[in-house]
């Protein structure tokens, strides 16, 4: 099987690019901690309301942890609890969310907080809220007739 010299050059360059891309995201994910939401904690989807921390949705200050706040969300067709919440600018926040019924999305538009909520699983993402303003949280996974009416608002305040 014969390969033209130029094709070898092209494939070397192309594969080189792919290796660079993979290295960049790999190092960012596994050394700098920028992994996509992949929490392994499970929960009984029918007992969400009585299971900690989902018995108290909303923002909570925490002590002695790597993050300053925990922001707890409970999703169900077709709403989030809380429907509106304020977060202080610059706070390091762990967003913790789950669903009581079908699969939902949890996407804070214009940020990297974008994760699936699946019944039986807890989804978590930790980040520093370093931009002020009102952010829309949308459900970005189809969940039924009211899917497009399902949202929450997070205001990052100075």
């Amino acid at each position: 099987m014969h390969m033209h010299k130029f094709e070898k050059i092209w494939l070397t360059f192309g594969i080189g690019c792919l290796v660079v891309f993979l290295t960049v995201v790999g190092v960012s994910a596994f050394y700098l901690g920028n992994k996509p939401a992949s929490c392994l904690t499970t929960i009984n989807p029918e007992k969400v309301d009585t299971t900690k921390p989902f018995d108290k949705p909303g923002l909570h200050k925490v002590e002695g942890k790597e993050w300053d706040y925990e922001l707890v969300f409970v999703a169900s067709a077709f709403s989030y609890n809380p429907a509106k919440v304020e977060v202080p600018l610059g706070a390091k926040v762990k967003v913790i969310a789950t669903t009581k019924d079908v699969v939902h999305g949890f996407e804070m538009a214009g940020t990297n907080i974008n994760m699936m909520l699946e019944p039986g699983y807890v989804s978590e993402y930790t980040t520093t809220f370093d931009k002020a303003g009102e952010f829309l949280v949308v459900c970005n996974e189809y969940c039924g007739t009211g899917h497009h009416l399902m949202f929450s608002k997070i205001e990052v305040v100075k």
Partner: protein
Amino acid sequence: MVNTAAKVKVDPRDAKLSMAHFFVAFGALALGGLMGLLQTLVRSGKFELPWGIGYYQILTAHGVLMGLVLTTFFIMGFQYAAVSRTAGTHSPAARRTGWIGFWLMTAGTLMSGTMILLNEASVLYTFYAPLKAHWIFYLGLTFVVVGSWVDGAAQIMTYAKWRKNNPGKPSPLLSFMAVINTVMWIVATLGVAATVLFQLLPWSLGLVDTVDVLISRTLFWYFGHPLVYFWLLPAYMCWYAIIPKIIGGKIFSDSLARLSFILFLLFSIPVGFHHQLTEPGIDPAWKFIQVILTFMVIIPSLMTAFSLFATFERYGRSKGATGLFGWFKVLPWNDARFTVPFIGMASFIPAGAGGIINASNQMDQVVHNTIWVTGHFHLTAATSVVLTFFGISYWLVPHLTGRKLTKAMNKLGIIQAWVWFIGMAFMSGAMHFQGLLGGPRRSAFSTYGDSKQALEWIPYQIAQAVGGTILFLGIILVLVIFINLAFFAPKGEEEFPVGEAENLQEKAPMVFENWKLWLGITAALILFAYTIPFIDIIQNAPPGSKGFKTW
């Protein structure tokens, strides 16, 4: 020697079965296209659906008709004809098998379609549990999948017969490629068959109360990514093995074409996690391993890009073109059989670039489930693949029906492709940008409580409606051409173009036909990528979910 190529015709009995597939495929295109138009209009915020029809109902219909019916029927019809043309007429047994497959798929389509129309299955074409559709919807899907296996078996039978009659020879390129795609499809659909048969059907029938959501999703995406390669490979068949003949050039390298198809077989399947990157319950290390495997499947596409440019440049230079890009101008731009798939190829450049972004692990958080993704697969599937399918049908339909592609239809075909391109530039372009701003996919019009961010998305949604309207015009044009070529075009002989390799001395290595080897590696890669994560998912499973009907 006189016109031997032109006289090699697909046997009329095989032609009939291929055409049966195309009637269903183009019927699905007509209906699905209308649904698509309605969606873009609704989401512009300027239009509401009449008679209480639900947005998500037509969204389900659009996805099932376009993503599953149009594609599967067209591909099976095209590959069946390509095998008949290059490996010889199908035997009566193979043809009967093909017909059984066709009718199973058609019956399944009708079953699932009826349930969608009755609003019993507004679960979108991904039918994620615990949304629970009517059991007939799942049974219909089973029929479609099983039917496609039977249908594909016909191609494999004829390929095997050719191999038996020609020991030690590499099989005809188009037949080889068709069989690779069919085999990949069979291995991939095992996943969706497993979740439908063992999880969703018993659950929707009430035999079991709950379903394990993550297992179902993982099985679905084990199938879901090779599904998109199943759409793409027939387009690659046309680009590699048919376009060179149409332009009057040669296949750049027969062996490299085969190698790229084998790489697609190996690496299309063990990569489903890149659709589940933001999901809980899957270890991030395993996600990243599948991201690496996903990047492997980019390599055959890089090879394809080089081969295609090389075919064009060689042809152009043989026509006396000079300079770095002079060859580009001498390509047969007035031939719809070339220009239409070419626009498809060109669209694959932004489509592929977008795909690399989607698969880049945490970068998926920027675009996951935003309308960027919808924009992405409307470039890959709905432009690269479909325009190539249209381009194929412009010679294949008249070839099968014993008619001619007239000058007028040829011209209309080229106009159709440009209309499609412009419509898609508006629609897919706007989807990409809106997605980067966070606009979600699969959502009806909403201002989300007059959110400032959501209000910024509306102009993009209007652009999508403009694009969607232009695209619908494109669908009307392609249907006009299809009906003309199937029923009204003048009688005559239209060639089924099959390319020849540039270097006939270079025989493809026989190792490419060693199915035990390639299926063995395919299985090994799948087991490597999925065994441990699957055990984890099963061992750490939460309580199952009961079904919901939230529509």
